[in-house]
C-alpha cells in the first residue's frame, strides 16, 4: 500500500492515564476519502484515539502519523489540516453565530475577508443563515451541532473528525446532519466518526472499526461484518423451553441467544429458512427481521452495561 493512499496510520498506538490503559496498542490505517467509523461502548477508547489524532492528548507509546507527519513533531501542521467537531458543545457563548466562526477562523490565521466569505458559505450550507446574529444560548441542540460542524470546516480541512455528531438530537435534526455529512463525503473530505448508534454507522461509514477495552476487536465494511457475524436474517420468538429445544435441534449450527424473555436466532443459511420453520412450528411472538450492525455489535461487545 503506497503512502498516498492512506492519510492516517497508527502503529502500536497506546495511551495511558496513570495506570489506566485507555488505548491498548492498536494498529489502523485511514484511507484517503473514506468515511471510517470508530464504534464501541462507553470507555472503549474511541474519543481518546480521536484526541490523539488531532494532537490533543500526547500518545504514551507507539507511532501515529497524519499525512506522513508525526503527531509529536508537527502538531501545528496537522491541526491546520484537520477539522474537529467535539462531543461536548464548546462554542463560545459570548458570541453570536457569525462571530463564533470569525473568531475561530482567526485562530487559523485566515484573513478577515476570506474568513467572512467562508463563514457565509458555511451558514448557507448548514442552513443557519437566519441565525447569523443570534447568541449561542438561543440555538436549539441541532443548530448548535450544525454550527460546530460549520466551525470544524472553516479551515477547509482534509480530514474531519466527528465525535458522536448526533448524540442528543431529535430524528429530524439527526437526518439533516446525516445529509450534510454525506454531501461532505462526496466533496472528498476524509471523515472519521465515533458513534454508538449502529444505524448511524451503517448509514454513513464505508468501513467501521469496533473497539472494546482499548483494543480494536473487529474491522470491516458494515455489510461485511453483518454477513460474517450474524448472517442475513434474525428470528425472534418469545422464550419457551420447548421452542428453544426445537430451535436448537433445527438450527444446530446457528447462533442462539436468550435476551430477557426473547430468543434470538442468527443463521448463515439463505433467506426463507425461518419462514419455513414458522410454517411448521408457529411460535408465539415470532418476528423475522434483517440482521443489522447492532446485532454484530452486541454479539462482539456483550450486553453488559458499561460505566
Amino acid at each position: 500500500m503506497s503512502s498516498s493512499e492512506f492519510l492516517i496510520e497508527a502503529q502500536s498506538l497506546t495511551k495511558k492515564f496513570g495506570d489506566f490503559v485507555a488505548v491498548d496498542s492498536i494498529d489502523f490505517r485511514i484511507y484517503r476519502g473514506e468515511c471510517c467509523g470508530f464504534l464501541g461502548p462507553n470507555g472503549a477508547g474511541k474519543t481518546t484515539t480521536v484526541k490523539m489524532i488531532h494532537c490533543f492528548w500526547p500518545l504514551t507509546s507507539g507511532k501515529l502519523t497524519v499525512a506522513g507527519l508525526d503527531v509529536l513533531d508537527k502538531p501545528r501542521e496537522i491541526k491546520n489540516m484537520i477539522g474537529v467537531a467535539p462531543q461536548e458543545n464548546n462554542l463560545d457563548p459570548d458570541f453570536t453565530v457569525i462571530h463564533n466562526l470569525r473568531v475561530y477562523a482567526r485562530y487559523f490565521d485566515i484573513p478577515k475577508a476570506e474568513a467572512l466569505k467562508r463563514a457565509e458559505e458555511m451558514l448557507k450550507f448548514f442552513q443557519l443563515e437566519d441565525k447569523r446574529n443570534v447568541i449561542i444560548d438561543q440555538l436549539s441542540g441541532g443548530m448548535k451541532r450544525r454550527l460546530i460542524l460549520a466551525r470544524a470546516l472553516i479551515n477547509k480541512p482534509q480530514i474531519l473528525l466527528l465525535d458522536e455528531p448526533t448524540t442528543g438530537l431529535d430524528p429530524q435534526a439527526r437526518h439533516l446532519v446525516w445529509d450534510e455529512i454525506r454531501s461532505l463525503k462526496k466533496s472528498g473530505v476524509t471523515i472519521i466518526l465515533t458513534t454508538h448508534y449502529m444505524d448511524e454507522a451503517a448509514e454513513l461509514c464505508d468501513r467501521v472499526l469496533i473497539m472494546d477495552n482499548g483494543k480494536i476487536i473487529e474491522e470491516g465494511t458494515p455489510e461485511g461484518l453483518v454477513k460474517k457475524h450474524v448472517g442475513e436474517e434474525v428470528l425472534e420468538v418469545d422464550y419457551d423451553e420447548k421452542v428453544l429445544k426445537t430451535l436448537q435441534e433445527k438450527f444446530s449450527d446457528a447462533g442462539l441467544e436468550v435476551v430477557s424473555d426473547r430468543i434470538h436466532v442468527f443463521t448463515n443459511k439463505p433467506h426463507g429458512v425461518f419462514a419455513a420453520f414458522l410454517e411448521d412450528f408457529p411460535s408465539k411472538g415470532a418476528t423475522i427481521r434483517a440482521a443489522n450492525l447492532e446485532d454484530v455489535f452486541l454479539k462482539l461487545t456483550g450486553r453488559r452495561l458499561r460505566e
Partner: protein
Amino acid sequence: MNLSSRVASNFKLPKLTYRVWKVWRRNVDVFLKTYKVNFFPPLLEPILYLIAFGYGLGSSIGSIQNYAQFIAPGLVAISIMYGSFFECTYSSFVRMYYQKTFDAIITTPINVEEVIAGELLWGATRSLINSALVLAIVALFGLITSPLFLLVPLVAFLAGLMFSSIAMCFTAIAPNIDFFNYPSFLFITPMFLLSGTFFPITTLPSQVQIAAQAVLPLTHVVALMRGFILGSIESYLLLSFVWIIAVTAVFFVLSINLMKKRLIK
C-alpha cells in the same frame, strides 16, 4: 521522577509565538461586547472609597485633603490587583471548565502554552484598563500632584501580569470554582488591608512590616503608585520594581506549566 526534575518540570520555558495575541484578541472581543458592565463598576468603587474614607474618615483623623491623597494611589493599586486576579481566577476558570473555550482553541494551530499566555496578558490588560479608570477619578478629585503619574499604566500592566500569573497558579490547582474563596480571603483581603493602602505600613509592628514586604505583592505596587502619583521618588522604589519583575517572571512560567499539566494528560 525525582524531586528536582519534578520541580524543574514546573519551570520549563514555554515556546510562545504571535498566536498568543489571538487568544488575547478573543477576550478583547468579549470585553467590548459587554463594555457597559465592564466599565461602570470599576468607576463607582473608587468614588465610594474616596468619599467614605478620604472625606468621611479623613475628616475625623486630620487634614481631609491629605488623607484622600494618601489613599488615592492605594485605590489605583487595588484596582490593578482586582482587575487581573479576578480575571485569571473566576473568569479563566469559567472559560476553562464550564465553557471549554481552551479545549476549542487548542484544537486549532494554537498550543496550550499560548492559550495561557494570552489569558495572562489579557488579565494584565484588565488591570491596565481598570487602573486607568480609577486614575481618571483620582485626577477629577484633584489628587494627582506629579507628572510622573503618566508612568502608572506601564507599571499597571506589569503588576497586572504579576497578579494574573499568581492567580493562574490557583486556577491550575482549583478543584472547583468555590476554591477561589481561599485565595480571595486569605491572600487578597490581607493585601487590601495591610499593604500600605489605607495607612503607612511603617505603623505596623516591624515583623508584620517585613512580612508584608516579603510576601504581599501589593505592598510594592502601592509604593510605586504613591511614588508616581504624588511624586515622592525614593531609592527603595527601585527595589520594589525589581521585586515585581522577578516575581512576575517566576509565576508567569510556573502558571503556564501548571496549567499545561492540568489540561494535557
